[in-house]
């Protein structure tokens, strides 16, 4: 039974991906494009050569971090739609911190810069968390609002206090070299390694720590968790802080590892894509690694697809959406009921 359950846990997301690719291809067909050609160029653009692979990994990195952030929040029963804003605040704080601490010994600059990003993301999430726990404000609305506030704050910063010294474009000065993450010539930066290391860490916290146990219990049934003496409110707060911290780290890693400076429209919506990443992963950290890679490859390949097949890169969004919709069908309560009724385990347990 355990093996069957594990298998099911793999089969459902895969089926959802296949269904999504098929459905998206139909939309391509309807739009007059050749789906096979388009998908071919997409795959080549994501995995075809060294540069493609590097690009895929670079695009995977922020999705992995924000995907973990969303997975932890959702697991704990907090609908954090705010990874986007937390990422932006992380990038903003990292940019500001880098210019402040850039003159310190090199060994301190990167950790301090990343820490600033984590702290900013956590604080940004904490606003929504406190509003939820103390004032009963829906975290869905609060985090969405905070996403916009964060986007405007970044806009303000790059037009104002953080604007480049040349004052020509709405962007920050390049980060001091000491604040940049080490990277290969392909652009593969240390942040990717860091993100990968956080996967087992997140798994450990969720499944091997008291905190993770409380998170999962709270996400499943907050009332029973309260009766059990495990303070679900505190667990939700902690989950939001960790979630925001991870998203903030994603922003800090992007700015120190990839872009080197802050500008308007800094995030291409990774914080929203993260929702698809986390759901496809069934909110499991190891799954997040796989699904972030999937969406990272889509993002990397879509550029090539746009160039050579003329299909706009935004096609990836259709795949993301259909993946989520397919997963929702698989999780539909009436499907679950039908499954419980027909599963042999349930029948034997019923007979007991």
């Amino acid at each position, binding site marked *: *039974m*355990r093996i069957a*359950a594990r298998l099911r846990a793999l089969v459902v997301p895969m089926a959802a991906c296949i269904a999504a690719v098929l459905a998206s291809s139909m939309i391509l067909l309807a739009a007059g494009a050749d789906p096979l050609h388009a998908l071919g160029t997409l795959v080549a653009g994501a995995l075809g050569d060294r540069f493609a692979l590097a690009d895929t990994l670079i695009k995977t990195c922020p999705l992995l971090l924000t995907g973990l952030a969303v997975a932890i929040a959702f697991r704990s029963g907090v609908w954090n739609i705010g990874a986007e804003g937390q990422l932006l605040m992380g990038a903003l704080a990292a940019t500001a911190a880098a210019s402040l601490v850039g003159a310190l010994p090199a060994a301190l600059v990167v950790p301090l810069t990343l820490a600033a990003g984590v702290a900013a993301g956590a604080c940004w999430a904490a606003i929504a968390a406190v509003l939820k726990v103390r004032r009963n404000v829906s975290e869905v609305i609060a985090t969405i609002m905070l996403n916009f506030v964060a986007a405007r704050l970044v806009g303000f910063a790059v037009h104002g206090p953080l604007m480049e010294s040349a004052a020509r474009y709405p962007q920050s000065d390049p980060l001091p070299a000491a604040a940049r993450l080490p990277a290969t010539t392909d652009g593969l930066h240390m942040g990717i390694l860091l993100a990968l290391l956080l996967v087992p860490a997140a798994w450990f916290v969720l*499944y*091997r*720590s*008291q*905190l*993770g*146990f409380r998170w*999962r*219990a709270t996400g*499943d*049934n907050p*009332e*029973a*968790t*309260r*009766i*059990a*003496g*495990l*303070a679900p409110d505190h667990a939700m707060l*902690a989950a939001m802080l960790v979630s925001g911290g991870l998203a903030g780290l994603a922003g800090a890693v992007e700015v120190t590892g990839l872009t080197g400076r802050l500008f308007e429209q800094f995030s291409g919506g990774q914080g929203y894509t993260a929702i698809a990443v986390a759901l496809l992963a069934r909110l499991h950290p190891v799954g997040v690694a796989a699904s972030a890679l999937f969406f990272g490859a889509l993002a990397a390949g879509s550029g090539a697809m746009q160039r050579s097949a003329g299909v706009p890169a935004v096609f990836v969004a259709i795949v993301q959406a259909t993946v989520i919709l397919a997963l929702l069908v698989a999780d539909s309560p009436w499907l679950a009921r039908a499954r*419980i009724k027909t*599963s042999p*385990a*349930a029948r*034997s*347990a*019923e007979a*007991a």
Partner: protein
Amino acid sequence: MTTPRLAVHGLAKRYGATVALAPLDLALSPGRIHGVLGENGAGKSTLVRLIAGVVGPDQGTIAIDGVTLRGGPRAARSAGIGVVHQHFALVGALTVAENLALGRPEATGAWLAPARLEAEARALASAHGLDIGDPNAPCGALPVGTLARVEILRALSARPRVLLLDEPTAVLAPAEIDELFASLRRLRDQGLLVLFVTHKLEEALGLCDAVSVLRGGGLVTTVAARATTARELAHVMVGDSSSVAGAARPPAVRPAASEPFALVVQDLATDAGVGRTALDRIGVTLAAGEICGVAGVDGNGQDEIASALAGALPRRGTVVVHGRTLAPGDVGAALDAGLALIPGDRRREGLASGLTVWENACLAAPLLARLTRTGKITWRARLDVGRARAFAADLVRSYRVRAPSLEHPIAALSGGNQQRVVIGRALATAPRVLVAVNPTRGLDIAATAHVHAMLVAAAAAGTAVLLLSTDLDELAAVSDRLVVLYRGRIAGPVAPSDRARIGALMAGLA
């Protein structure tokens, strides 16, 4: 013979292996108030649901004036059945007038002018002599007594031929009950058939022309109200206690004199709320190793006592567990002091249904703390999964939980096996006090017997057990002594075998 207003023929319903209603026949003429009397689980609710069209029968028919009913609640209503549900189908955010309008689409048309709704509400209320206060007040802000009258008024507004009332007086004050009865009598005199479902003997006798008594899903007898007495009815209702084998219990083990009482509760009181009964100066004292039963019909404060003691509901008064005075509203303090809870609603308060069997077995702060190195739950503490699984395996073994594996979600287990996990978990903390609410509800006979054995064993090991139950057989089987809970107050003590007196106290008599 003329066609009866309501004819029930061979009506029966089973839920799984449980017979909720054995084939039942009734033929009632208009212009009468007919009582249906029975204790909890006697089949009253099933009969109500069948007649209201909420569930369909397995066999048998219901006919109004010779026309057989088919279909759901809408069909039942258009056939002339007005229902006052025990749990009101009122929308809290809507006003009284709006709620009344919801119940009678035919009468109001598409346009709703507040002035007209208000006037109609007032007219309805005065026509039936029911005080509903301000028709423009939102229902969510009204006391339950008023809500009950609104619900009754809504049923009446459809001009039913049969008015079915399911425990309508549970939340009404005596004066309100008198008023309700007066209007029901008036309706009867106008030719309505009133079906009055209750567990309260005195009301059944005082109001009804005739009373049918249900017990264990079957119709025991139908008698004219004038030809019987409360004592007789009580006896018929609760059955002959000698037919139930009471488990022989050894006398409770008394603890050493250092700490005479495991649980002392004084002047425990809570506020009423939506769906909540107010507790009024509850006082209970339990010695270690003692099982104190609390009998009572559902909704008289069982869940409130349990939640208040466990720290999950704000309260006043004193609660002392083994010499430690508990702060109100502090779940952690109650658990630390050694108070464990078997909640009445297992799915809502007891289990995280998406988590595995072993995880649910550990879902209690004291158990979780044991699985850390420091014995405390901190943010950084590890969860020793190996020990947790071993603990769960042990629990599953000793409480004979039938589970496919420890890794299965607890939702895959049957209700009885889920309950064994909940009870095993509560007992695993070796609590000084165990508060259990209807621990065998929904379980089959074997599982019930096993749960009873678990409770008795826990008491023998020195745990003081407060058993709040609606099942008199259960209470008789395991209790050392018994009190009765009625409308948030404790009455008694009473001998566990004295069914007649228990029935009287449960019904608010004596």
